[in-house]
């Protein structure tokens, strides 16, 4: 009997180890898909930016700058993916402290763009181009890592909720004061999804309803342009040349693209009518060039990145790594869907970029960093139940 039990144990070990190897090999495939998609989408982004800016005074400026950021981003992706996940966990507290200090500092010493104090001007010129750094973008990956390691570890769900809420509020306040409401919205939705997937009694979220209403009222009273944007979203035909302008232009631009697009380099409407066609309106401007067919392929490519992220979250054994991958995937998917929803006028206008495809160095680096750390987390262990990294 003992011999039979021992033999059964050996067989079980073999199967688990074989399953583990199979899973690792499958995870490796998903990681390769991530690398490939990020490279392809990055290059497509450069083409899309040219298409959106060809009638500006210097379209090559935007493309060259974006290409340089893509190179820097791919380098960031590779470097961050080869650093072992345990080192991120060891250093996460000082890193998050530095980023929080930067979020406070940017309110005082930041560079203002479109009424938002969210960028630092870096005193370095990249091939004669000025560089700007947006801490709230780049901090996303580290914020999620911080949540994954330190929060939601209590057995008591209410304690989890309280610690989570304190961190959420502290983190959100400086971003709200910039005011970078688009990024804040991404953080908020991502945190909501993340919390709901991590705790048993996710209904504690309802305790946020009153403070949320107070926060929203504060935002509306202090930033009247938000009310204007909301009215423009709800009734675009009432004031088509002012508050309804952006909403109408999104629709006209997408309609012009039709099913097959107006062809690359022929996105006349996006160039002449659509505000910020290369960044906040990237989805609509690419739609004009590629049409529904082209955007369907882009959506599938972005969805494949999300799918790979969910797969890695499901099949990573390490607890903290799994939480991080899930949080990172949620934040990426939320931002992508929000940008698309804004461009398709399903959601009011906010300043959110389309990851990888929109113009912007901080956005590129932030996305690549997110995926780089995600890959590092996925590779950290391929055996079951190893929580030593905690």
């Amino acid at each position, binding site marked *: 009997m003992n011999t039979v039990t021992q033999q059964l144990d050996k067989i079980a070990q073999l199967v688990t180890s074989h399953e583990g190897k199979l899973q690792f090999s499958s995870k490796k495939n998903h990681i390769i898909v991530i690398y490939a998609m990020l490279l392809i989408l990055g290059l497509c982004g450069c083409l899309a930016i040219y298409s959106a800016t060809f*009638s500006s005074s210097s379209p090559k400026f935007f493309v060259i700058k974006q290409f340089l950021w893509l190179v820097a981003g791919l380098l960031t992706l590779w470097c961050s993916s080869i650093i072992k996940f345990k080192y991120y966990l060891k250093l996460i507290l000082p890193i998050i402290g530095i980023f929080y200090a930067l979020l406070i500092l940017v309110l005082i010493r930041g560079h203002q763009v479109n009424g938002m104090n969210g960028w630092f001007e870096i005193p370095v010129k990249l091939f004669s181009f000025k560089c700007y750094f947006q801490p709230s973008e780049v901090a996303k990956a580290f914020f999620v890592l911080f949540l994954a390691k330190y929060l939601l570890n209590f057995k008591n769900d209410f304690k989890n909720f309280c610690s989570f809420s304190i961190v959420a509020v502290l983190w959100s306040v400086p971003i709200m004061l910039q005011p970078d409401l688009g990024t804040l919205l991404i953080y908020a939705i991502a945190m909501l*999804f993340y919390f*709901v*997937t*991590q*705790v*048993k009694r996710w209904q504690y979220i309802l305790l946020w309803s009153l403070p949320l209403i107070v926060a929203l009222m504060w935002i509306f009273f202090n930033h009247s342009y938000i009310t204007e944007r909301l009215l423009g979203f709800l009734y675009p035909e009432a004031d*088509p040349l002012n508050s309804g302008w952006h909403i*109408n232009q999104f*629709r*006209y631009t*997408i*309609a*012009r*693209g*039709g*099913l097959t697009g107006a062809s690359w380099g022929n996105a*006349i*409407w996006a160039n*002449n*009518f659509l505000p910020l066609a290369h960044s906040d309106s990237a989805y609509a401007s690419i*739609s004009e060039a590629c*049409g*529904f067919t082209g*955007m*369907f392929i882009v*959506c599938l490519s972005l*969805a494949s990145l*999300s*799918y790979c992220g*969910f797969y890695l*979250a*499901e099949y990573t054994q390490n*607890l903290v790594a*799994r939480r991080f991958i*899930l949080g990172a995937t*949620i934040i990426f*998917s939320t931002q992508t*869907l929000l940008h*698309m*929803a804004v461009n*398709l*006028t*399903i959601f009011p206008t906010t300043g959110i970029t389309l990851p990888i495809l929109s113009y912007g160095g901080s956005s590129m680096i932030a996305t690549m960093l997110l995926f780089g750390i995600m890959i590092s987390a996925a590779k950290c262990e391929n055996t079951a139940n190893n929580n030593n990294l905690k």
Partner: protein
Amino acid sequence: MENNLGKRIFYLKIIFLLLLLIVLYTHFRYAFLERNKLLQLGNKLAWREGILYQPRGKIYDSDMNILAWTERYYDLVIKQDFCEKQNIDKINKVLNLIRKSLVPEIPHKKFIIEDLQEDNVVVYGIKPEIDLKKLNEIIDNFEFFAIKPRIVRLIVDHKKIQKIIGKTKIVEGKIIGISGLELKHDKKLSGTPVHYKVMLNRKREWITETFSTSSSEKPENVVLEKNIAKLLEEN
């Protein structure tokens, strides 16, 4: 909790997939189902169509002395729609600005409401040396003003020749011959109007790459069989 994670990830995937489907459906709706309606609305805002009358042909005598020709002038006008009491001060301020920055010849007249009773009050007949583009940039910010082109048919300064050549009148921007040689050769001198279509950007400027015209007959110059001396002898 971690045992339920697989299930919750599954539900999360479903939620994101549903949101993606909503996104794709909305895109399809704008790109295909409602495309025509949206294009019409957009085109109404962005496209300008119109008629351009080609410059009327010249009349020469047999010795190729020019007898009649057309010149284009530009006038700075105050649009009739804005000739209201509440706009008077603004109108005078802008005129002052234009006078100081570009066209000092604009008369130092302070407009009052009684001056603005006609259609498109002409403030100033713009001289050819004035930088039209710069003037246009200034008045572009003020809806009260416009630069209106004005075409004038000129004939040599001789009463008998003028009688032979005949008279013209301007109807909706087109010069039409109503007597004399102008009437006799009206079709040849006028050609056919050109229909144009051009896209405007947000600042209402022409996007030159989109400018297109229909085909038309070009106006021709008329060369008379006789010279001035013989024309005067016969008349």
